[in-house]
């Protein structure tokens, strides 16, 4: 507020107390923290993808292809730990939530900017611990990302570091959630009632509640495993009287809701992008908003479906099976509403929408196979096979990953004030889409036929599927890296964009400067109507002219 000129400078050029790199890593500006998260997430994503690629390469032939079994065990563990705790869980909230949540509700920052920065530091510390666990003698953890007892107590590898990494990352996640809930409650612009909020805010808000309520449970559980290793407390170790199944319960009480931490924000982004490129009001706003809350609620009650084969009473099995199917209802409501929004819309098939359509396609496959696994008899058949691996990659990568890419292409011009090459982006999309499906679809088939997950070796009859799958990884990985390449290039050298509203969106981020000024709004806007009204045709014509 000191100087009017300050208000004109974009957040990228804004000079605060510090200069150079310090002006980024000590900044409490939610936009800069979003970018910090984006960079660190991308680095870990590249590491995770590389591990995945190596795994696929190893599985190309039965027996040894490029690595020994112990390395393979370490690599699938690291792939899981990095992808789950360092990419998909923080994923959209940490990057796009931080950057756009305050803007979308008409605020100048989150409620607790300093805690926001702290959460990024915790993220970095957690990431470093995970890397230390790889480098230290003893070797990287080989337990799988689930750290199941008793093996995680017995193995001589650096499990403790991986546990602490996950523990600290949990704190980072809690701080983000706490910040978002308070921000949404306290900092909405005048006139923005709950049902006038953009739908992504509903998603981030529901996610934040899961982050707060579920994460402490994994925190204490992982801490107890560490105690178990150090002090032989005996709370989970069957040799000392503990119950390993109880560990699994506590682990999944967090880790199942965590998959909704991963998918809900992506659903929010999809709800944000679809009306913009269909040029019409979202169909069933209230249902989409409430289904986010319903997913958060029911998603917290289904954890035991991960343990149908681990020893559980028939009654519990029935209840958890039923609840699992109930979660599918709000998810389906969203899918139907998205499709209904597209129906008879003036569809403008831009890159973000392509990713969104791929999201819907893949999420539907991933979601429906999820319902199949909720059926007790089928679950026993497919338990611990690559069918499961295919299922959660269709949801986590085909869903959240593609949602992340969609958000990246949608908001990129707003974040950096520059544009990527649309034609190149479109071609890359097809590489990513085809590569993804070639990579993961065969896993459904071989899993159904009995190929176990996490196995180093396999019978020759499964090889054809492994070969197709590995070929898929050769299409997918270069395409994703190409995407990162042109995005990084465009962030520095892309065509400059100064238009406020490049896509013709009606939410608040498209009413402010590109890239946004340090304080987002020179004057806090007053909100009078729902976010996706598309009443004025001006915007639409203006947009098609600009095209």
């Amino acid at each position, binding site marked *: 507020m000191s100087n009017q000129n300050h208000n004109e400078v974009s957040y990228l050029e804004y000079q605060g107390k510090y200069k150079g790199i310090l002006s980024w890593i000590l900044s409490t500006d939610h936009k800069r923290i979003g970018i910090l998260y984006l960079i660190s997430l991308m680095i870990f994503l590249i590491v995770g993808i590389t591990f995945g690629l190596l795994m696929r390469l190893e599985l190309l032939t039965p027996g040894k292809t490029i690595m020994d079994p112990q390395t393979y065990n370490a690599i699938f563990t690291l792939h899981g730990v990095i992808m789950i705790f360092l990419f998909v869980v923080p994923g959209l909230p940490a990057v796009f939530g931080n950057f756009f949540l305050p803007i979308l509700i008409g*605020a100048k920052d989150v409620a607790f900017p300093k805690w926001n920065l702290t959460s990024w530091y915790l993220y970095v510390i957690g990431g470093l611990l995970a890397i230390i666990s790889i480098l230290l003698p003893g070797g990287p953890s080989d337990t799988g990302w689930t750290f199941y007892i008793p093996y995680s107590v017995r193995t001589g590898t650096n499990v403790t570091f991986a546990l602490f990494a996950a523990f600290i990352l949990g704190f980072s996640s809690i701080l983000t959630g706490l910040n978002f809930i308070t921000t949404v409650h306290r900092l909405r612009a005048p006139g923005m009632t709950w049902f006038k909020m953009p739908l992504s805010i509903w998603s981030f808000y529901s996610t934040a509640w899961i982050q707060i309520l579920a994460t402490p*449970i994994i925190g204490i559980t992982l801490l107890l495993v560490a105690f178990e290793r150090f002090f032989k407390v*005996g709370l989970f170790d069957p040799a000392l009287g*503990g119950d390993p199944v109880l560990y699994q319960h506590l682990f999944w009480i967090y880790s199942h809701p965590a998959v909704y931490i991963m998918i809900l924000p992506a659903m929010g982004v999809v709800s944000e992008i679809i009306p913009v490129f269909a040029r019409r009001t979202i169909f069933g706003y209230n249902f989409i908003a409430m289904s986010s809350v319903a997913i958060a609620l029911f998603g917290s009650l289904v954890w035991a479906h991960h343990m149908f084969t681990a020893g559980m009473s028939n009654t519990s099995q029935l209840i958890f099976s039923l609840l699992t199917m109930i979660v599918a209802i709000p998810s389906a409501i969203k899918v139907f509403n998205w499709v209904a929004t597209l129906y008879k819309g003036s569809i403008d098939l831009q890159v973000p929408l392509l990713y969104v359509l791929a999201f819907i396609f893949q999420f539907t496959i991933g979601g429906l196979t999820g319902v199949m696994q909720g059926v007790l008899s089928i679950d026993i058949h497919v338990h611990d096979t690559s069918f499961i691996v295919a299922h959660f990659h269709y949801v986590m990568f085909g869903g959240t990953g593609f949602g992340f890419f969609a958000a990246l292409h949608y908001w990129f011009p707003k974040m950096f004030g520059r544009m990527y090459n649309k034609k190149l982006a479109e071609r890359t999309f097809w590489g990513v889409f085809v590569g993804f499906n070639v990579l993961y679809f065969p896993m459904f088939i071989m899993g159904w036929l009995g190929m176990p997950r996490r196995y180093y070796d396999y019978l020759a009859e499964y090889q054809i599927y492994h070969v197709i799958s590995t070929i898929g990884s050769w299409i997918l990985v270069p395409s994703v890296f190409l995407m990162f390449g042109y995005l990084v290039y465009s962030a520095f050298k892309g065509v400059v964009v100064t238009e406020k509203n490049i896509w013709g969106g009606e939410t608040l981020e498209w009413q402010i400067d590109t890239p946004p000024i340090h304080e987002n709004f020179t004057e806090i806007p007053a909100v009078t109507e729902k976010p996706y009204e598309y009443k004025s045709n001006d915007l639409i014509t203006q947009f098609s002219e600009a095209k």
Partner: protein
Amino acid sequence: MSSSEHTVSHVHRDDVASRMGMWLFLFTELLLFGGMFILYSVYRYNNPDAFHLAAKELNTIIGTFNTAILLTSSLTMALSITAIQRNNKSLSIFFQLITVVLALGFMVNKYFEWGAKFHHGIYPGSNELLSKPAGEVLFFGLYYVMTGLHGIHVLIGIGLILFMTYYTVKDIITKDNYMKLESAGLYWHLVDIIWIFLFPLFYLIT
């Protein structure tokens, strides 16, 4: 009240938001301990006799004494907030320091209590303990982990209150701006409440 205006984020002060943030944080703390309370319930249900026997080894007198100490410290904490609200800075500092002294007293008692058990060879992983039935191993495992984690929270609380005392001395916490002290107070009451559940579960139900 300034909290309803949305001014610049960096100079922005919103007591309602701070209070809300603190309460949300307290939820996470409750759930952190909640995980262990689940373990306690399941293992107690599975091993009622062993838990009954093992609980007799705990010193109810020290436990009661510690409960009284913590409850009193919660009172002095609340009094320090009331004192600052009435603009009585020195009284507030006095009560904060009393709270710290009581908390330290709690930890000293804890030290002697744990020390006595260690002396008898009852600690996680000891041969003495592992020769006992599984239920008793679990009881003491839970006892050490839960009271230990609670103890860590007491130590954090002591640090937190000392910071608040410093802020009060420096006039950062004042009659009109005491949200920090109130948050520390909320945290301290949580530490107290968790103990109120730990005490009967370990010492009284035998």
